[in-house]
């Protein structure tokens, strides 16, 4: 490895880090398979794609900037509610609704980032948790706007580009969700290979050193947090549109905790970690709960424990360690 790379120029080396690998291309081609192989699973596939997008947004702050959040669903939920309400009050055109929801989530993320960027560790986790719970409570109390615990009613979404209606089979829903996931994956990939991505990794690797090399670490975190909130808003808005429903669960603690589990399961800080984690978690949940609707928690629990014991640092983290060991015995 070292021999090969050390002969490269530094520019070529850095460029090579962001080159597409064969496995990635296979991965993205595989995301098209559900259309052909599992046409009756497209609704699930659509929700997996959105969960993956949500996990990817968390990865930007958690995996790269080291900001652990237990309140990330606040942005998901704001995106979902805003897109839902937009469809009721303005019109049902999906892309404008998506943009509206995501922008609102991004603005909220920007506002709260001024608090977030000042803290680390448990304090940070608890403040994000507290803000998340407050957002949930606001949604509950604003019954007139959100429908409270009954959920937001009367969302109607027009066909995408006026052509593709959201159908019972989830074909359009999966196409829409997958397209969004891919677009924001490309954006995240670029972001993480950018100077800014390097700065975020710097923050994760050494919080103390950053100011000593002249970095405005709080400004970096504010920016990352805003971007992550925007992306979470996209995921939430798309879920609201593809299911034509929003409930308090979409802004609740459970969703924040689930996305954290998905990301850590897949491997935080690895770009594909959230995608892999969301897929495995959601498929496992669907299959286990099909077999044992009351006790599927047990098997999910066993899955998590097994992964931690066998593959620390998430599935991708563990696998890369295993392959590294295998390469140099």
């Amino acid at each position: 490895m070292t021999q090969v790379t050390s002969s490269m120029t530094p520019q070529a080396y850095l460029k090579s880090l962001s080159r597409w690998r064969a496995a990635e291309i296979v991965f993205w081609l595989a995301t098209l398979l559900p259309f052909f192989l599992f046409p009756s699973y497209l609704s699930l596939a659509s929700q997996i794609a959105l969960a993956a997008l949500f996990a990817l947004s968390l990865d930007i702050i958690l995996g790269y900037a080291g900001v652990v959040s237990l309140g990330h669903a606040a942005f998901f939920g704001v995106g979902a509610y805003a897109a839902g309400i937009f469809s009721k009050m303005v019109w049902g055109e999906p892309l404008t609704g998506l943009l509206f929801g995501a922008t609102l989530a991004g603005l909220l993320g920007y506002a709260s980032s001024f608090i977030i960027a000042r803290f680390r560790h448990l304090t940070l986790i608890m403040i994000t948790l507290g803000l998340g719970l407050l957002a949930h409570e606001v949604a509950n109390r604003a019954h007139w706007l959100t429908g409270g615990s009954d959920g937001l009613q009367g969302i109607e979404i027009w066909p995408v580009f006026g052509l593709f209606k959201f159908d019972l089979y989830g074909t359009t829903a999966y196409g829409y969700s997958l397209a969004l996931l891919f677009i924001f994956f490309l954006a995240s990939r670029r972001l993480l290979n950018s100077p800014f991505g390097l700065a975020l990794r710097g923050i994760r690797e050494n919080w103390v050193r950053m100011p000593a090399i002249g970095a405005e670490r709080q400004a970096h975190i504010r920016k990352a947090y805003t971007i992550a909130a925007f992306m979470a808003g996209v995921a939430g808005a798309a879920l609201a549109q593809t299911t034509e429903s929003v409930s308090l669960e979409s802004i609740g603690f459970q969703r924040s905790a689930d996305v954290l589990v998905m990301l850590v399961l897949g491997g935080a800080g690895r770009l594909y970690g959230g995608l892999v984690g969301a897929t495995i978690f959601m498929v496992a949940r669907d299959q286990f709960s099909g077999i044992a609707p009351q006790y599927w928690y047990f098997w999910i629990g066993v899955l998590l424990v097994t992964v931690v014991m066998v593959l620390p640092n998430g599935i991708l983290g563990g696998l890369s360690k295993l392959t590294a060991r295998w390469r140099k015995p």
Partner: protein
Amino acid sequence: MTAVALSTRGLSKSFGSLPVARDINLELPVGARYALIGPNGAGKTTLINLVTGMLAPNAGQIFLGSEDITALEPQERVKRGLARTFQINTLFPGLNPLEAVTLAVCERRGIADRFWQNIAVHNEAIEEAYEILSKLRLGDVAYQPTRELPYGRQRLLEIALALATKPRVLLLDEPAAGVPQEESGDIFEVVAGLSNDLTLLFIEHDMHVVFRFASHIIVLVGGAVFTAGSPAEIAADPGVREVYLGTRKHG
């Protein structure tokens, strides 16, 4: 009369009732090579923390050139040309030296917040980073994760990171701390080779090194400047011998 690069006036700090810096007045002329010595617990690292803004003083002022930087955040001081290294490695273990130094260069050039560009397009920044690494004899390990580098190389990377900020004043906190004696010379060769415009202040315990590389020595005892002067003056000062050379421990 040479211009002053860095000065402090009446700098004081105490933790609770324990004073760690007492009325410190320094003046570092441009291009100086100053050593800061003193027994363990004399407040040497604290002084660097105060000057770089990682600690807030209780009283006193800090000037970079003629600008009062006392109220500035650490990163703002860095941007004005005041850099430091750390006694205990404070690196980015998961980044390789090229990435780490490129990051520092990007921060200085103000392009570190560009999230829409691939880093590979910033050729000049990368080249500059690689030049710094080459100069510090780190070119051959530029692509290895920092945590896998030999310790001595990591000490050099400490300096490389500081140099990437293009400092006018560089504060080195025991640059060769923990490095075997035969290698520590290499590190100071590197330090000595730095540009003459750069103003240096370094903490060091090894008196051979201090007398060889420093043009001027400041002796800190109990948080206060005990005395200062040329190496010859310090070597001849019986007070220093008594409080410092006589009782010092190898650290």
